[in-house]
């Protein structure tokens, strides 16, 4: 179970990285195309889609790695019990927020699908396709927050926090 979870987080990071590679390749293709006089249709649009996919698909990995920034100045000074309560409270709030965002993004993709929305650029792309990674990425982040929430409720320190503490130790 745990190694499966690990693989999922790793997958989130790698897919996001793949998005960055795709942006690079698209821009290079556009430059080379210009040199040799062919057009890479909608390269700008596709680079934008890859950017969105990369940003959203990597959210879960980034969350778990403690990459999302927060102000730890005050909470660091809490003693262990209030600190645990604080962490549980903000994780509960975050979980509620993300459940809502997952719903919102999924319903946008669904609407794009039923309305047959297409992009306005060079190639008419059915919008639900590039939007799908956005919904998947948000849901993945939602699961990552859920994972941390369960850990917090069981009295364990969430993984992101361990990374944050590691950074804090370096400081001294």
């Amino acid at each position: 179970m745990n190694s499966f979870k690990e693989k999922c987080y790793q997958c989130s990071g790698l897919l996001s990285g793949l998005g960055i590679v795709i942006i690079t390749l698209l821009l290079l293709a556009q430059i080379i195309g210009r040199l040799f006089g062919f057009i890479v249709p909608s390269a700008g649009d596709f680079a934008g889609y890859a950017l969105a996919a990369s940003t959203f698909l990597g959210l879960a990995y980034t969350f778990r790695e403690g990459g999302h920034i927060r102000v730890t100045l005050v909470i660091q000074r809490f003693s262990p019990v209030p600190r645990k309560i604080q962490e549980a409270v903000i994780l509960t709030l975050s979980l509620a927020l993300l459940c809502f965002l997952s719903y919102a993004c999924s319903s946008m993709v669904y609407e794009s699908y039923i309305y047959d929305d297409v992009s306005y650029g060079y190639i008419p792309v059915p919008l639900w396709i590039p939007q799908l990674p956005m919904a998947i990425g948000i849901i993945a982040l939602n699961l990552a927050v859920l994972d941390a929430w369960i850990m917090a409720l069981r009295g364990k320190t969430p993984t992101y926090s361990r990374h944050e503490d590691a950074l804090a130790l370096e400081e001294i």
Partner: protein
Amino acid sequence: AEKWHMPTPYGDGNLPTQIDYAFAKEIKAKTNGELEIVVHSGGSLVKHTEIPRSVKTGQVQIGDIFMGILGNQNPVFKHDNIPFLATSFDQAQALWAAAKPEIEKALDKDGMKLLYAVPWPAQSLYTRNPVNSLADLEGEKMRAYSPSTSRLADLMGTIPTTIQVPDIPQAFSTGIIQAMVTSPSTGVDSQAWDYVNNYTDIKAWIPKDIVIVNKRAFRRLDKNIQDIVLAAAKNAETEGWKRIVERAAKDKATLAENGMTISEPSAELTTQLEAIGKTMETEWTAEAPKEIGRILTRYHQELGQ
């Protein structure tokens, strides 16, 4: 009192946005503040590409868009992007009258209602070197941002090249492109004289912004307020067609004042471009023969009268 939000894609200096402000003001005055429309110009509330969807889903009640961006949804929205189909404001107005029923039908299907349209000045040719015939452009790189501008570049014997709007000045000054087709207003906005010398007034097409409203939001208004909105829309459209003529002249003069060479197309160039126009009209018709056929029939009737 009801409050509507109206995102627009272009900044306050542009005619469509100015007309939108006047439209909102007229409605507020005539309804005694019962309906207030807050204009959010320059994509400040909603990005241009998201405005149609926002209006459709009711996130905002009303919005201003460049009609061409709906061209991939339905080819009838491209009627004002077909090169050399309508090249004067009179022709453009006739084409608009011919296309309006199809546009209204297409919008209605998506839960939206057409209020009014505001034209842009005609799209003309910006080049580094003077152009007397297409031979002067042979093999040069021309900006293309859509299938139809790309096809136009092909037919003109140039190499279509994708450049995103923010990159245009740099692309001209470093020689990535040597030509583009856009309106004198856009030329003035981007201070085209900094990076390109020649403006040939080919008047390729006259695109429009349209203002669309969410059908449910409109239906919820009282009948007398609906009437005020429709009357204001009618005034806005009349005002738009009236003011665009002087605006186009003024923008062209600004280009000249800043040192650009403004020229009329030669007879040879005009003949060559008209032939290209015919080809593209045929190709466009093939995309939706029934609807576009109706537009063209009505358009030629209007012109015939």
